[in-house]
């Protein structure tokens, strides 16, 4: 198994180098001049301009710039953000927990609804429930989530309508919660403030639904089709012939096999989630990496964009690797071939 992981990791190296190259060349293709951006309205003399360019390393030949970028990555140095003057890596990790918290809630929400719904639809194939569910999930799959977010705000947050949930941010401004883990749900529990957790949870509801909608639709559809295929298998008939209860047959014998596909599907949603996080975080002013990337792009924050691309792509690659690994773990046919 360790060899399997190492081989896979080895295969990731060229892709990772490709990502760094892409990120590197992208920001050098961005129109505009970093120094002028830094200077803003102030005018910069040509000498001062050259000096600043040299300070940022833009005066060196491109290959040398790329090389020092790579060396920097190895040392955990992704440059300094123009706007905040903080190291990019630090900037990233300040916001990362917010995105993880949101994405985790979204995927749990998606799986909690999508999985059982897909199973029931498959078991009751052709029924009204099946048709309704597939209709809903195709609608979810077709949802422009930026609009979905606005619509939910109108419905749930508008004081004229339900007025239930807050519109933006991670927690009400009334609370001051110390950052311990970066996860607001946990931090608010740890803090002594009464109602902080409630507020944090309420702030999570709408973003979770918005971000989880498309993965939920995908999970429901994939679970259904995987279960449909498996319910026709010989071993399901065997399970029935053993006199097992329908619950055991569907929930243990069929589901265990379907999970091989479904877990892979869930894992592959990470890219979708991160792309969705950009929109969701923008709508709900959620201080995560999605919003940070959008802001950095519009501010032309060169190093933040460059570092952000590398970091986000690395996360996607690592999670895909993890999914590969999980696939091997839950599929006995693969597990034993390697040992």
């Amino acid at each position, binding site marked *: 198994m360790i060899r399997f992981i190492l081989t896979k990791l080895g295969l990731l190296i060229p892709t990772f180098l490709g990502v760094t190259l892409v990120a590197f060349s992208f920001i050098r293709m961005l129109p505009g001049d970093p120094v002028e951006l830094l200077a803003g309205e102030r005018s910069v003399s040509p000498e001062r301009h050259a000096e600043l360019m040299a300070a940022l390393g833009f005066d060196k030949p491109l290959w040398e710039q790329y090389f020092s970028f790579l060396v920097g990555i190895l040392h955990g140095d992704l440059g300094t953000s123009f706007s905040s003057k903080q190291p990019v890596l630090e900037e990233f990790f300040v916001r990362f927990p917010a995105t993880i918290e949101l994405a985790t809630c979204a995927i749990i929400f998606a799986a909690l609804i999508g999985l059982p719904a897909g199973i029931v639809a498959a078991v009751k194939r052709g029924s009204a429930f099946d048709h309704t569910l597939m209709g809903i999930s195709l609608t979810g799959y077709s949802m422009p989530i930026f609009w979905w977010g606005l619509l939910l705000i109108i419905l749930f947050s508008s004081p004229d309508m339900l007025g239930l949930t807050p519109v933006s941010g991670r927690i009400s401004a009334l609370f001051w919660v110390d950052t311990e883990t970066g996860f607001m749900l946990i931090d608010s529990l740890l803090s002594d403030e009464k109602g902080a957790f409630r507020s944090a949870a309420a702030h999570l509801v709408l973003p979770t639904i918005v971000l989880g909608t498309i993965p939920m639709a995908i999970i429901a559809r994939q679970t259904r089709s995987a279960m449909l295929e498996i319910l026709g298998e010989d071993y399901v008939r*065997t399970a*029935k*012939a053993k006199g097992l209860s329908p619950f055991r047959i569907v929930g243990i014998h069929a589901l265990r096999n379907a999970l091989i596909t479904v877990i892979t599907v869930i894992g592959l949603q990470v890219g979708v989630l991160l792309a969705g996080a950009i929109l969701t975080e923008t709508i709900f002013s959620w201080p995560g990496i999605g919003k940070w990337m959008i802001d950095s792009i519009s501010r032309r924050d060169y190093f933040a964009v460059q570092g952000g691309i590398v970091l986000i792509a690395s996360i996607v690659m690592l999670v895909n690797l993890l999914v590969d690994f999980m696939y091997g773990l839950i599929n*006995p046919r693969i597990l*034993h071939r390697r040992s």
Partner: protein
Amino acid sequence: MSLLEIRNLSVEFETAHGLFRAVDSVDLEIDQGEMAAIVGESGSGKSVSMLALMGLLPWTARITADRMNFDGKDLLTISQKERRKIIGKDISMIFQEPMTSLNPCFTVGYQIMEVIKEHLGGTRKELEARAIELLGLVGIPAPESRLRAFPHQMSGGMNQRVMIAMMIACNPRLLIADEPTTALDVTIQAQILELLQDLQHKRGMALVLITHDMGVVAETAEVVNVQYAGQQVERQNVVDLFAKPQHPYTYALLSALPERATGKRLPSIPGVVPGLLDRPTGCLFNPRCQFATDKCRSTPPALHSKVLCHYPLVDGKPTNNHPGVSGPGSSGQGSSGQGSSGQEALGGNV
């Protein structure tokens, strides 16, 4: 009272082209310790009738019967929950494809222990001991180590043994074996059959063997049901069936056995079992029957002393005023339908 009694069982499927009758008034009776065989080509509804008994048919199937009793319990009216208490415990079934009939995601041991736990209960230790005992009983070497093996790590023959172990785990009184050897190598086939027979004798189970192999029938069964296109065409004890086949289909099946071949060519039954769209009128076997008359083509036959034929055979000759045997030229007519365009040698199909 018999252990299992089925009277006039019919199974129909709703299809896009109308109702399809896969099993047509089949009877079966079997006593404790008896061994019966159901014989017929693929598509004759052998498995379907037994799956109906087990309650394993999809919901599109319509099952009707005058009687379907097991051990005094009426399986027609029994609730799903009650049925599940019998299925896998008192009646169990072995399937054709051992490689796909075991769940690939669970160990062999888990799958055996599961069925015992479901019906008899027991602690983990007891279950494990019983599973090891069962694996030994079905002739799996080193059963302790096999407990943690997955089905894909074993051969087809081994998997079929596991399947048997699983299905006899609760000491069933009736075991249905649905072509248990078809997917296996010839050498393994004999071993599995021997194992089944051995188990049947030792435990006094009733055994229903579904097969298309007349050779298997000769070696194992006591009573034989011959089924064709969902209908039971003949029912005899094995000795009489082989000595004095009465239905032309049985006769043709037996003639197709390599051991019985006289000429250079293996005799075959031309054509295939009729499906949904090519069902003939009259006797269902008439298009392939060498003795078929106009009466056969127009009127469905009634049961003549356990043979579904207008002209039951005696010594290979049709009786009951068959127009062909009244004169001496009968043999010519008899052979005309045979072998001319044999598409599927039944013997070769085995």
